[in-house]
């Protein structure tokens, strides 16, 4: 399924609920676009909910990293929540757990923003 994303707010935190695949092409481009729009709109606390993302390739990982550096570059925070097993495994083997702040659930994630 092509990647879809919808945005909602919990206080100051912008939560983007993604579903589908984050892969080379429109999927990864959409992720990049949505995060960029949030940052350009002044949002500095961004949570990516990946509960319904069942597939990510190296391009998708690259876009997640790009999103992270974009938000950090704007002095913001980007966190991840609800990783599926396959996404978690990719993040694990690429050592990106040392980069991303992966939260156990949405409530904990929202509380964790400074």
């Amino acid at each position, binding site marked *: 399924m092509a990647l879809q994303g919808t945005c909602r707010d919990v206080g100051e935190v912008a939560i983007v609920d993604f579903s589908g695949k984050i*892969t*080379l*092409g429109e999927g990864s481009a959409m992720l990049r676009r949505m995060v960029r729009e949030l940052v350009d709109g002044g949002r500095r606390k961004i949570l990516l909910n990946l509960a319904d993302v069942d597939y990510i*390739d*190296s*391009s998708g*990982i*690259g*876009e997640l*990293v*790009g999103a*992270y*550096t974009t938000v950090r570059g704007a002095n913001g925070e980007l966190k991840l929540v609800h990783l599926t097993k*396959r996404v978690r495994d*990719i993040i694990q*083997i*690429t*050592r*990106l757990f*040392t*980069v991303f702040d992966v939260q156990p659930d949405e409530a904990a994630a929202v509380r964790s923003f400074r």
Partner: protein
Amino acid sequence: MAPATQRLEVTLETQLESVDLAENIVTRVAEAAGFGEDDIHKLGMAVREGVVNAYNYGNAQDPQKKILLVVEFESEQMVVHIVDEGRGFDLSQVADPLAEENLLRTSGRGIFLMRAFMDDLAVRRWPTGGADLVMWKKLPHRAAGNGRS
């Protein structure tokens, strides 16, 4: 060396749609070969990464060029070739994406993932020209035979 007993060869266009197509073909073949769900996923992902490499780097996104996907079954393993019209590259020169200085790069993880998901990986010249990214995966354990020696 005994010849491969089964072989599938598909010519793909150098376009993004070929990435999904190649992955779908290989996952279906892997399923028919008896691989488990986890290995099917890994095979599909490895081929996806290989075709992306062929599309982006080997063929430089040139729609005039082709990508050849070959799947062979030898006695103990499945062998996948992804052939592009490029010059190839030295696997040993690919930057380590796990190195601290590379963690925040937005690219460079494809080869690493192929190595992680397959038993072996090599880059060679294809006999008729072009670069051949070849990867191997040991076939799943077969059930016991019929007892005849």
